[in-house]
């Protein structure tokens, strides 16, 4: 991605380079000409010029909701953009199965929403046979053995189950993110594993709407999966890592 030639990007509205975009927000004051001017200046402070306040409505006892349009001054130099993403080979389900068959046994995966989190939508989408958006979950893979423990699973229970079934990978889903509780819950598992001397025993995968690979790495996981992840991505990542670990060739 890196190159020396700057590649500058502006928001594309009606024409290339116009920087036109929309913002909506709430301010703690009631609608008035002053409120409208305050909203305009608020937008200007975000780098918008020629600001148009297109909507100003009272939305709470002392609150007003605004929609504004304006031309953003800001530019992104694409040549300087770097991201940390999990290395996931682009494999079809059949290719994943073929690679997994080279491993000695089925790949055992244990998944759970840990700690206080009760939202299984994400883990179910990845693991359950029904999957998500027309793509089957890991349960549908013949080479995978899946244990979905569901919601509010204690870390000790997760670790115990993972050991009992001889898990290769642990999938932890964190949906609720209020005041960083997803990070807290995720970190707690890693700490628990290290307390029990189980660090490195399992491939650790973290998923959720506010999770990315960089965050997951910083919390001590092997990979992070955010919105738009499909079961195939997760399966491909796991099979790739396990193949490498066991010194198998990376080509299918």
């Amino acid at each position: 991605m890196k190159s020396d030639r700057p590649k500058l990007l502006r928001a594309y509205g009606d024409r290339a380079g116009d920087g036109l975009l929309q913002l909506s927000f709430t301010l703690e004051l009631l609608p008035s000409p002053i409120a409208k001017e305050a909203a305009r200046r608020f937008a200007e402070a975000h780098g918008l010029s020629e600001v148009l306040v297109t909507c100003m409505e009272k939305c709470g006892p002392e609150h007003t909701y605004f929609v504004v349009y304006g031309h953003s001054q800001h530019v992104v130099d694409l040549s300087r953009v770097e991201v940390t993403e999990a290395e996931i080979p682009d494999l079809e389900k059949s290719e994943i199965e073929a690679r997994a068959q080279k491993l000695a046994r089925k790949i055992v995966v244990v998944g759970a929403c840990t700690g206080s989190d009760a939202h299984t939508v994400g883990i179910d989408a990845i693991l359950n046979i029904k999957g998500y958006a027309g793509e089957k979950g890991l349960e549908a893979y013949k080479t995978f053995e899946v244990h979905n423990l569901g919601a509010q699973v204690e870390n000790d229970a997760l670790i115990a189950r993972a050991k009992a079934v001889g898990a290769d990978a642990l999938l932890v889903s964190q949906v609720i993110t209020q005041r960083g509780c997803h990070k807290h819950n995720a970190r707690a598992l890693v700490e628990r594993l290290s307390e029990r001397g189980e660090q490195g025993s399992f491939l650790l995968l973290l998923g959720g709407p506010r999770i990315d690979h960089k965050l997951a790495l910083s919390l001590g996981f092997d990979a992070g999966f955010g919105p738009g992840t499909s079961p195939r991505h997760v399966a491909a990542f796991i099979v790739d890592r396990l193949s490498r670990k066991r010194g198998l060739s990376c080509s299918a």
Partner: protein
Amino acid sequence: MGLIALDPALVDRCRSLSSDIASEVQRFIDAHTSVGVERTVVRALGVEGVDGQGTPLVNTLIDRLARAQLLSRGAAFYLGREMLRRRVSLQVAAEYLAYDAAEPTPEGGESYAQVAAALASDNEQAIARIDAARSERTQLSRSLQAAETPWKYVIVATGNIYDDAVQARAAAEAGADVVAVIRATAQSLLDYVPHGPTTEGFGGTYATQENFRIVRRALDEASHALGRYVMATNYSSGLCMSEIAWMAAVERLDMLLNDSMYGILFRDINMRRTFVDQYFSRRIIARAGIIINTGEDNYLTTADAVESAHTVLASQFINEAFAHRAGLPDALIGLGHAYEIDPALEDSFVTELAQAQLIRQVFPRHPIKWMPPTKHKTGDVFQSHVHDALFSLVGTMTGQSIQLLGMFSEAIHNPLMMDRYLSLKATRYVFNAAKHLGEEIQIRPDGRIAARAALVLRKACDLLEVVQRETLWSAIARGAFADVRREPTGGKGLTGVIAKDRDYLNPLLHSLEAA
């Protein structure tokens, strides 16, 4: 909307099967109590307070009786006996039983009748307190403008009860008819109810008696200011479902999320515990005149909304049968369902319409709770807003009673004040624009909607036939609902279930059942 031609014999058959299914479980319920039920009884009789660590007195008391294996006669028995022996008030008797150096023992000659008589006055006051709260609630709502159905229901979930109160008032002012305070996600698995106001909670705010009072006060103020009654909702679920039902009853809540099977399926609470607890909670709820909201909408977040639509209907019949056994009239049974079909499917709207109309027709007197799309929501807030608009259109066309509004920021974060406002504004538009649309529409007897509704009804009936033969315990164990499997002896809270003795004493239940 014009009626779909459904086979009334099939609907009757579903009701009769569900009645058998619930009766089989009810035999177990009637023979058992739980630590949750017993805590509720002593709370209702007037025991209050917490120790230095914040452990409620009722927990210390009931845990002690449980350890001494005395709960089979009912906590009330030992409470009344202590009052007689020490000639003290109920509260002081409870403190002795909980904290005295001497462990409680079963010995003693006091008879059931003597002890029941000692508790009679406290028990009458317990019932009177529920009745007074109900009457205050009814008077206030009658003195103000009533909301039109579908009632617009929104949630607040800041984690801090004082912020919740601000958000609740804002929501009321923006047009909400019902405000629910979402519970902290871990609370369902706590085997005690926290005490006092709370300002920290993840994914929601703890349900406590003081928190109920704070939100009800905020909504009372909003109701008076707006000239229309705004309803308050919370969750009677989890390991403390009956204690919370009692708190809601005396703090004038209008609705409670309360389901006969939700805790089993989605919180892995033991099924025996859940069945026992749901019954007692519903007895209190019935006395308080609170509307329950059942949780079938959740089935469709784990199972597919097209394939598993019949499991929602079958479960609604079962929930209804359990509710009737707890004395709830149809007008208080808010059966839940949801708009969760994959929006990418052709005719997904048509299929939703068929399901919504089917439920409306099968349960005509019930305040049906209609839940918004969540499963197929992404971070695309603009598309999400359109998705919600179609959901609202189905709600008004088919005359759903309680409409939980969709939020365009679903799948991103808890609703911001602005999100809730925009949702209310859009819903008001749809409800008003399509107010009489339903009345103008006849359903083709040979069309897609009628065929879909008939299919779902037939499959629900087939499922109920199987469940009736195998019993509900086995059906849940093999994953008949929500694709979730639970064993009768698995899950949390089983040790808190106790078989009743023949001379089990529970004056509150006795009064509630006699009504």
